[in-house]
């Protein structure tokens, strides 16, 4: 069963003191910081982030109960809300004194719902009557109002990544008004309305933060309701986004389901998503007991999952906070890919899903290997689909790389900003990955029929060709090896005939080596060398080795390389044939060449042809040597 948990909590949670009468715990989602405020700050404030960099400990005066506490970006300024009307600021800029100031909201009778930092010194107050955008001037101990907007607000959401605040307005709360913030400016974006659910989606009297309808909010243009997540249950939910997946935790059934909003049906404006995987609970987490109380032999206490589900912070996006014991923990939620493999039967969908995950490479490769070895039903069409999906991503990367190279080569003169080198994600599975991790071991499987192996290899080659990726020769070699092993020379021949196995020198040499078992390989190999047009030397060698001396000579003449070829090589080969007329012809040819090059028919010492001259004189007589024409 443990194999089925595809969600888990990270290994090293952030541990903090549990909330109590003297200790208040706050979580700032934007900076992922947990604040433990003891006695209103008088006995200390401990700030812990996901890594040690963000951890700070300090004291502040107890000026009443803290309602909310948040650092600005980079821990520069601390904002503390103690009353419904005002927020206090403490400067934490290094080498500056800890100056304090306070700011009340401008609107009368308004109470602050919350505040969000949009920059190191810019903050937005969200009140029930609107929003106010301030710049904090720590050295002047004051705030400057940059902009404000009056609107009824039920609740708000802030997305730190895009600096967008979403306000719920109107009595029913179903009109959402986004505002975008960017270095001192606030822009109102078109508002949109949410159809109140009639279908048994999470039905509530009116819309609260816990309803789920994901809207992709573009920076410009109009909104469309692009995605709908079908939960098929009711009750309390919590949402996380992990690795581009929307994770929905359902409290009463204590399960979590994940949605991949990029998995979509084509040609469909509104995507109604079904959960990618069947719901499962988070992998149980065991909290190691530490400290004096811990008995070494005692097993770690399993963390009660029900508690986990109950304590999910509704606003928390990537972390889960819980406080089941004396101390609180902050975890990152992680998606484990291997268990998903068995839960998602449709291999095509599985690939789509995996290709968008972060650490997917080895999982994908193992899925491929399993698909080929396990005798999975579905066969070649499924194999083909998987290959096509992998190669599509591979191709997109190669193209990006290509445009980048072209862009950098043409120089920055084009005016466009220097492009960024495309990042090679784990989803890029290239030919060598495929070869080393999947295909080479697969092709050595004894219990798999060679027909299937060849079909799979051809399918991979087809898939690469389909997206116009040049196939590496080791894949061809694998195919040839399989065909030769099973004496399927005629198949090999047909592949070569249709240039399915592309020309290359290594391939031509491989073919040449097959000549003894399959004579036609010789012709195939020579043709290939000839087509390559960079392998003239090899062709000459091949022809000479088969004692086709005249043929070799004619060939080298036809490509215009006979001026500087080694006469000795040809004469040696001619001597070996024991055909005296042939030797005569070759000898005469080189005499004529010498004549043309140097005006003298004799060989120069560097050519090492002395023994052949002696032999020529022996056989044909001295007078047969070509005379130098003297004018």
């Amino acid at each position, binding site marked *: 069963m443990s194999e089925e948990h595809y969600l888990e909590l990270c290994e090293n949670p952030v541990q903090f003191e549990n909330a109590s009468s003297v200790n208040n715990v706050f979580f700032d989602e934007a900076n992922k910081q947990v604040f433990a405020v003891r006695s209103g700050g008088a006995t200390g404030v401990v700030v812990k982030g996901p890594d040690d960099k963000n951890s700070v400990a300090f004291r502040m005066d107890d000026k009443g109960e803290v309602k909310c506490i948040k650092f600005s970006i980079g821990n520069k300024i601390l904002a503390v809300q103690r009353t419904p009307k005002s927020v206090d600021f403490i400067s934490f800029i290094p080498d500056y004194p800890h100056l304090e100031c306070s700011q009340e909201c401008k609107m009368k009778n308004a109470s602050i719902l919350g505040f969000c930092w949009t920059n190191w010194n810019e903050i937005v107050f969200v009140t029930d009557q609107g929003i106010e955008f301030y710049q904090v001037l720590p050295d002047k101990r004051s705030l400057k109002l940059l902009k404000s907007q009056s609107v009824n607000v039920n609740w708000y959401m802030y997305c730190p990544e895009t600096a967008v605040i979403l306000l719920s307005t109107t009595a029913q709360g179903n009109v959402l008004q986004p505002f975008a913030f960017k270095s001192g400016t606030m822009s109102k974006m078109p508002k949109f309305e949410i159809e109140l659910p009639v279908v048994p989606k999470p039905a509530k009297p009116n819309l609260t933060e816990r309803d789920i309808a994901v809207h992709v909010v573009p920076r410009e243009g109009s909104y469309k309701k692009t995605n709908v997540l079908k939960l098929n249950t009711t009750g309390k939910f919590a949402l996380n986004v992990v690795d581009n997946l929307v994770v929905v935790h359902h409290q009463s059934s204590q399960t979590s389901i994940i949605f991949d909003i990029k998995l979509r049906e084509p040609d469909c404006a509104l995507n109604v998503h079904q959960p990618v995987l069947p719901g499962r609970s988070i992998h149980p987490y065991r909290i190691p007991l530490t400290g004096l109380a811990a008995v070494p032999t005692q097993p770690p206490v399993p963390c009660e999952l029900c508690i986990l589900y109950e304590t999910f912070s509704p606003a928390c996006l990537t972390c889960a906070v819980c406080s089941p014991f004396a101390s609180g923990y902050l975890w990152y939620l992680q998606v484990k890919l291997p268990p998903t493999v068995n839960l998602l039967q449709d291999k095509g969908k599985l690939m789509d899903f995996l290709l968008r995950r972060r650490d997917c490479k080895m999982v994908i490769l193992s899925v491929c290997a399993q698909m080929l070895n396990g005798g999975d039903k579905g066969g070649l069409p499924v194999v083909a689909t998987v290959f096509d999906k992998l190669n599509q991503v591979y191709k997109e990367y190669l193209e990006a790389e290509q445009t980048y190279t072209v862009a950098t080569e043409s120089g920055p003169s084009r005016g466009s900003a220097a492009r960024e080198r495309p990042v090679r994600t784990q989803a890029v599975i290239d030919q060598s990955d495929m070869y080393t991790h999947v295909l080479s071991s697969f092709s050595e499987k004894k219990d798999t029929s060679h027909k299937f192996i060849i*079909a799979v290899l051809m*399918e991979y080659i087809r898939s690469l060709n389909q997206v116009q990726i040049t196939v590496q020769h080791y894949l061809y070699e694998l195919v040839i090896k399989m065909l030769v092993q099973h004496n399927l020379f*005629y198949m090999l021949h047909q592949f070569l005939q249709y240039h*399915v196995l592309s020309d290359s020198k290594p391939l031509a040499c491989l073919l040449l080596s097959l000549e003894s078992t399959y004579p036609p390989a010789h*012709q195939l190999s020579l*043709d290939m060398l000839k087509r390559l047009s960079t392998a003239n030397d090899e062709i000459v060698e091949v022809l000479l080795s088969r004692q086709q001396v*005249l043929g070799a000579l004619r060939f080298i003449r*036809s490509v215009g390389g006979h001026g500087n070829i080694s006469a000795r090589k040809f004469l040696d080969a001619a001597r070996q044939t024991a055909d005296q007329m042939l030797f005569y012809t070759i000898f005469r040819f080189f005499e004529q060449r010498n004549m043309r090059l140097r005006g003298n028919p004799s060989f120069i010492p560097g050519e090492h042809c002395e023994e052949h001259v002696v032999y020529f004189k022996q056989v044909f007589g001295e007078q047969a040597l070509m005379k130098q024409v003297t004018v």
Partner: protein
Amino acid sequence: MISPRMASGMQEKQYTPSLLSFFVYNPSFGSREGEEEKKILFYHPSEVEKNEKIRNVGLCEAIVQFTRTFCPTKPAKSLHTQKNRQFFFEAEDSFWIVMVVRNPMVEKPNKDGRPPTIEYQEEEILDTVYGAVLRECYSMYKLFNGTFGRAMEAGGVELLMQKLDKFFYRYLQTLHLQSCDLLDVFGGIAFFPLDKMTYLKIQSFVNRVEESLSLIKYTAFLYNDQLIWSGLEQDDMRILYKYLTTSLFPRHSEPELAGRDSPLRPEVAGNLLHYGRFLTGPANLKDPEAKFRFPRIFVNTEDSYEELHLIVYKAMSAAVCFMISASVELTREFCEQLDGLVGPQLTLLASDICEQYNVNRRISGPDKEPQFKFIYFNHMNLAEKSTIHMRKTASVSLTSVHPDLMKILGDINCDFARVDEDEEIIVKAMTDYWVVGKKSDQRELYVILNQKNANLIEVNGSSSHMFSWLYLLIPTLSTTFSSWTERNKGKNCTKKRERKRDGERAMDCFTTLKLSALQGVMTASV
């Protein structure tokens, strides 16, 4: 086969070569005197009197036996006489097949009511051509009946005689000896030119079908009567190809033409309509009376000796042969499954190929009649291409050139066969035609040119140009040009042969290609 021809006012009758007799015998079956008849396993025409049969068989046996004394491994292959020519072929150990062909002749009527004079043209027919026809007869028999030896094992002489009788009775009627030529010698396969991607798609299709219908042992894929893929070995494919293109496809060509122009497949309830249909086996799957019997063929007779059902399935111009072990009973369910699986895919694939083919044709420019005609053959892969022959049909093979020229091609081929070396021969025929033959390694190329008053040098020049044209046409021809030797093959006949002065000239023309229009004519090599 009489074609009257008016010549100088007198009516002359021209007779083309025809089959006189055809028989199969095994000398070991009736070695005792008086039992000679037992040697004869098949004799055509059957109405010949018994003693004449015995005499003819005896003569052949004697000739073969006699010539063995000169060369034990290579006994006589043919016997030339004034009126006819006999071809001997030992198909299997001690099993001989003999074909007697009457020489072509001219009948010249005489005045004064005297009987007409008959002139036999003994030199007009070629041993290589008819020798090849005879071997093909055996191969075809073997394809559908297996070897003689196996028939003997299974049912003795009686069974063998039955089989021979049944097969050759019909087959000999389809022999058209008057139109046999060089192509019969080659017995080649025309390959369909195709780009790599489409080819890979076909591969993928074949693999998928073989995977989902695991009964299928071998598959062959053809388009436009040209081969694209063969899972069978070369020799088996060669004869199967011959059967398909000269017998099976021509018989089914008419309904095909009707189907091609109908509107695109409409989608009916998610079920693609398709054009697929069985060329062998049931004509109509829906017919409750339909019989699910397919022709059986024998392949790999040298080693594994397999008997297979031959299913030929066609959609538009694409035809696929599926071969299934004969030990399996083929049922209606299987055929329906195959139809449902292959039909839609094959229809799509066929239109893909058609599209691809048309694109290539458009690139290569409008169809222009080239100024020359050629035959190309590669012994290595049996690839054959001819612009001389029109579509071959069951009944007759049409050539677009005069038979005399075809004869010259055959002659050159004989010359090539005599020596192992590469060579080139240029022949001036009587009627302003030049015939150029080249042989390199395993490849042979024959070109017929018509240039008035051309001299050898010009012919050489333009033939070189043509070879370079062909080089583009047929990429794997390349090495042809690297190893030509010229040889003088003087021969005194009605044609004039000249020695080619410089064989290398042909190669030099390579660099002068400017035939970009032809690129893409043939993306696949042959």
